[in-house]
């Protein structure tokens, strides 16, 4: 069906373009293909654009995001068991699509590169008529695509992006983030570290040398130093270094007794595995057991690190072992369809799709400013993270943060992390001004 949809839209587009070409001056106004707002849906369907990494290091994470999106679309359209729609506090969505239109979707490959991600988002906007873009697995891509969506006049619902900048320095009115950020990780993790490792510790940071890494390093440093920890050294490592041994050996005799790995994805898998290989976790320094911390965890990546994750603290946006009704409903829905539990990437993208659809339904329009207004300050519950608010000032969701630990005796290859603490939302909240940036006005694209 969507195939047919394709060509029909293509013909329409040619026709518009042809008219534009004949009426020479109008083609130079750029609004030749824009209506009231960018891609205002005309027929019985509305198109969502799912922009996820399908190649490169995050391809598996992207595949999981795509699974969640498909599930979300089914639920919005009233197919399947409804998943978290049953537990979601807003009851605007009735399984009848959005604003009376059936949701269809198009997909694209971000390749985890800003250029490719923007090209693929543009295709979905310009060619496929996507009303919104969502997805992604890195902050660089999120910021790049968010900027694009602002310019094009569509809503961007960020996927997995953890850097402060997405809703800080680089925030945009048309962009919204459900996922948490490094600031929250720092605030949530610090008390747990204090309870387990005490206040007299010296930390050594290994940090991926790009914006997210620095952001993470800064937050952890800020919150741990507030506890009384010292920072021995913060070393930047090249992205994709592969073998981190040359960065790990200096840790051995540095006098530090905690190693903080501000790495994600493959870097995290490699640096953690290698740190354990170098016997760091069996070491005693200053009369204390040496510890390793991975501030941002991902179950998919934990799988790659194997046994190395056992007993290591970190934070995560959501985990499938949570026992609230919403999480259970989501895990059940996802697990029955795909045969394994969803990752946090799948969860956040599912939520984002639902949240967007719900906001559009409540606003009664797909106009970006209308949807945005409906999301601003929106308080909800029942999506697996407890009571949550989309803060109006920076379009960042505020909710509880999970502190997790690598499980000592996993029962399956999915059961790698255990939740040790649910840090309440109040503890991770910060003033919007802290991270700077300017939302600017909504762009409807007309």
């Amino acid at each position: 069906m969507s195939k047919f949809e394709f060509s029909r839209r293509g013909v329409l587009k040619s026709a518009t373009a042809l008219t534009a070409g004949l009426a020479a001056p109008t083609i130079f106004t750029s609004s030749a293909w824009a209506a009231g707002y960018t891609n205002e849906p005309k027929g019985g369907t509305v198109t969502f654009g799912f922009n996820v990494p399908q190649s490169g290091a995050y391809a598996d994470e992207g595949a999981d995001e795509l699974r969640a999106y498909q599930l979300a679309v089914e639920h919005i359209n009233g197919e399947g068991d409804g998943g978290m729609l049953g537990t979601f506090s807003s009851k605007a969505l009735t399984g009848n699509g959005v604003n009376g239109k059936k949701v269809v979707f198009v997909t694209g490959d971000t390749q985890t590169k800003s250029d490719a991600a923007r090209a693929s988002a543009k295709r979905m906007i310009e060619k496929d008529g996507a009303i919104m873009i969502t997805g992604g697995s890195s902050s660089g891509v999120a910021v790049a695509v968010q900027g694009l969506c602002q310019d094009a006049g569509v809503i961007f619902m960020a996927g997995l992006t953890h850097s402060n900048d997405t809703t800080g320095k680089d925030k945009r009115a048309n962009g919204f983030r459900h996922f948490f950020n490094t600031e929250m990780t720092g605030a949530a993790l610090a008390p747990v570290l204090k309870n387990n490792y005490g206040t007299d510790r010296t930390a050594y940071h290994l940090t991926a040398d790009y914006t997210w890494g620095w952001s993470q390093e800064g937050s952890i440093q800020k919150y741990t130093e507030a506890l009384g920890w010292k920072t021995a050294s913060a070393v930047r490592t090249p992205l994709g270094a592969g073998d981190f041994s040359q960065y790990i050996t200096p840790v051995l005799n540095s006098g530090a007794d905690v190693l903080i790995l501000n790495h994600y994805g493959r870097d995290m898998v490699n640096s953690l595995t290698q740190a354990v290989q170098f016997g760091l976790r069996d070491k005693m320094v200053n009369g204390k057991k040496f510890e390793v911390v991975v501030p941002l965890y991902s179950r998919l990546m934990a799988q790659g690190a194997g046994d190395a994750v056992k007993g290591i603290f970190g934070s995560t946006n959501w985990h499938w072992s949570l026992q609230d009704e919403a999480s259970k409903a989501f895990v059940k829905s996802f697990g029955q369809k795909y045969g394994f539990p969803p990752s946090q990437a799948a969860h956040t993208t599912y939520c984002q799709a639902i949240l967007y659809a719900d906001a559009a339904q409540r606003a009664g329009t797909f106009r970006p400013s209308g949807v945005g207004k409906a999301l601003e300050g929106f308080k909800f519950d029942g999506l697996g993270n407890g009571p949550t608010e989309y803060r109006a000032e920076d379009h960042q969701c505020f909710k509880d943060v999970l502190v997790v630990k690598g499980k000592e005796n996993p029962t399956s290859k999915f059961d790698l992390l255990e939740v040790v603490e649910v840090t309440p939302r109040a503890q991770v909240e910060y003033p919007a001004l802290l991270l700077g940036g300017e939302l600017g006005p909504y762009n409807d694209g007309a």
Partner: protein
Amino acid sequence: MPTRNDMLLLTGFVAVVLAAPFLFEPIGAGYPDLLQKFAIFGIFAIGFNILFGLTGYLSFGHAAFLGVGSYTAVWTFKLLSMNPLPAIVLATLFGGLFAALIGFISLRRTGIYFSILTLAFAQMSYNLAYSVLTPITNGETGLQLSQGDPRVLDIAFGRDYGAVLPSSDLFGLEMTGYPGFYFCGAMLIVCFYIALRIFRSPFGMMLRAVKSNQNRMNYTGLNTRPYALTAFIISGMYAGLAGGLLAVTDPLAGAERMQWTASGEVVLMTILGGSGTLLGPVIGAAVIKYFENIFSAFNKSMLGDIFSFLPESLQSGAVSVASLFVGEGWHLTLGAMFVLIVIFLPGGLMEGIRRIGALARRKKPGGGASASTPAE
């Protein structure tokens, strides 16, 4: 005054560029962003071909010049004006300057040693742009416009974009969508025309001589190094322009544009289309960008629709086989295509076109004479 064949070639080229939105619509490539990419990477590949196709120097670091062009253009937007003209002029200039610097050193060596030198310089640029040079490049996120940019020329001429983030515009004509494509398309035509002149000129002949036999060239009284360096700089300027245009149509410059994979991509575009031919690189660029953007967009549900005519039992099999090649498997199709083309069409896609042309001529005597030499 170019020859009649060249005039035909040029006219045809202009016609295709102008009609591109309609021509490419049936294959799903008629939307502005992809058309812009066709034009921009076409320019990049044409420029690369002036170096590689003519002199035979295989640079593995041309993406560095593309990146420099992009960064220059975005900085021009930020500091001077949102008008694309200063941006692309400066981007071309800086691309050329950077190429002069790297070329001057790298051209001291030939063959693979030259390739590795260019690769090393480009990788250094990439790694530094990603990390240490973040104040200039904004690192992983990429250099972006912001509302607080000075834009002194715009201010001087009384243009104020207010609270909205501006996009590049040519005296009020926004460089997004189809106008953006036609701007790039015009640049592509100019670049193609310049390349045509170079190909047909004594200078182009000298560049071919560099590829053919440098020893003989030296003993013929010709100094090979400045010829190679000039070609290197010209292709660096083309790359800088392409990078500038990327920023014009989409004002963001990311470091990964300089990575070796990006340099490798232009090599592949050129060889795939047919190195040393005029049209080949443009075709190669379009094919690769098409695969990247269109083949990657298929997903299982679309495939399911395509194969819905099959009985249920066959359908899932067909979908799973096909999904190996599209969607997340689009790289596989690309790789397989490289292998097949280089085996069966050693001269790249242009050789395929030539063979078809020859076949058509044989079938229809005298009919296709004017189309006899589409390029080289």
